[in-house]
């Protein structure tokens, strides 16, 4: 890797700009995402900036269990984020649809529609878990852009989520749920 590529990799890792999208969330995770920018957690130390436009963003933060109405909006916004990009699923809802599982108004979990890089489970997750998830997503994004590698989804451990994440990995649960859902539907 030459100097310019190394500089670009560092810059991508240290300047993650977020776009926050709610796909039918109860607002619990949204509040925690905003809380991670407050003085107590201060995600701006990592270069995080919450952007108003998806065009400016590197990392798409999605909360909520993906309602039927939100599917097309999610795909549109995912397309509007310019590459290289990463997706962080915040909360248990986008990972597994949580307590709303099997609801007929839902089209979740999220990774049925767009590729997800980091799952931050919890109902809601703590702000420090969200900050960790964003930092991991930035690292994944930088590495993927540099090496063109496919990176498996990551789960942020250390969260106190007892409902659907006993093994500490919502990603596995999400994958199994997706498989189950595809079996049921024709």
């Amino acid at each position, binding site marked *: 890797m030459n100097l310019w590529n190394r*500089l*670009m990799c*560092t*810059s*991508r890792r*240290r*300047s993650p*700009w977020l776009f926050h999208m709610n796909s039918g969330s109860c607002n619990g995770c949204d509040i925690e995402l905003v809380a991670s920018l*407050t*003085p107590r957690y*201060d995600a*701006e*130390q990592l*270069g995080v*900036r*919450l*952007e*108003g*436009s998806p*065009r*400016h963003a*590197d990392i798409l933060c999605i909360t909520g269990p993906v309602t039927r109405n939100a599917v097309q909006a999610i795909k549109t916004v995912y397309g*509007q984020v*310019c*590459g*290289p990009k990463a997706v962080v699923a915040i909360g248990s809802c986008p990972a597994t649809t949580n307590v709303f599982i099997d609801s007929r108004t839902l089209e979740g979990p999220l990774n049925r529609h767009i590729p997800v890089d980091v799952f931050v489970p919890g109902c809601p997750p703590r702000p420090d878990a969200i900050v960790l998830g964003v930092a991991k997503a930035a690292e994944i994004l930088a590495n993927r*852009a540099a090496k063109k590698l496919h990176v498996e989804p990551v789960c942020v451990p250390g969260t106190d989520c007892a409902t659907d994440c006993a093994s500490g990995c919502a990603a596995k649960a999400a994958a199994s749920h997706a498989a189950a859902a595809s079996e049921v539907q024709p």
Partner: protein
Amino acid sequence: MNLTTALARLLIFPGLLFAVPAAWFFLWVERKAVALMQGRIGPPFMQPFFDFIKLLGKTTPQRSGVAGLLMRLWPLLAVSAAAGAVGLLPVLPSSGGFEGDLILLLALLELPSMCIIAAGFSSRSIFGEIGSAREAVLSVSYNVVFLLAIVSIAASQHTFRLEALAHLPASPLQILGIAAILVCLPAKLHLNPFSLPNAEQEIYSGPMTEYAGPELAMWELSHGLEWVAATGLVATLAAPHLTTWWLAALVFVVLSFAVVLLLSALAAATARLAIDTTVRFYWQCTLIFAVLAISSALLMRFRS
């Protein structure tokens, strides 16, 4: 001013070689000052530099036709205008200059905001159009005071040479003019309480909503260069006349830094006003500055 000094001023000091790092530094100082005033730690020192490099490496959406070409053109025009404005500042003693360079400086300072207005409309985003309309209204409002303040200082000296204005002895008129310019700077730099055009989260990002990647990097850079030019204008007007070049450069940097801190403190301490309140503020409350400045300039002309 011959070609060599002109190129040196444009490219080295106070031009690009100084102004681009200074732009990143001022952007960092603004973010850091706001963070410290809110009780946070704030972004690391290299943050604006990393943001710039990262934006250069991002892809841009496919755009075709004249609108796509214009969307690529406006940020470049804004950057070159702002860089030219910085290059014109008479920082060093006996740096030359020409008759009427003040008018060129004012035009170049105005060009980035014209570009922002055009950029919002050519992006054809509804949020961009709202932001551009706000920028246009705002620029009509604050420019009355801004231009009258500078023109009254120039009129009292019978010249449009920047160097003559920079070497002005301290007078009540000069203090009045600098105060009027300082009142206009938050609107010119889109800071709170007048951050209306790019009102974050309210109208997404205003005129910048559709811009991505390198274009957005150029907008960030032009914003930083506007910081350097606008604070530098105040610094050159306020600086005492010094004959040593390094002392003059040092005083320029320190005064610019002080203005940046002042504006950041104001931005952190205030919330965004509505557009009608802002327009009323500039037309009703600060016009008194302009009237006072222009009348004292006329008085000085009659006395001399």
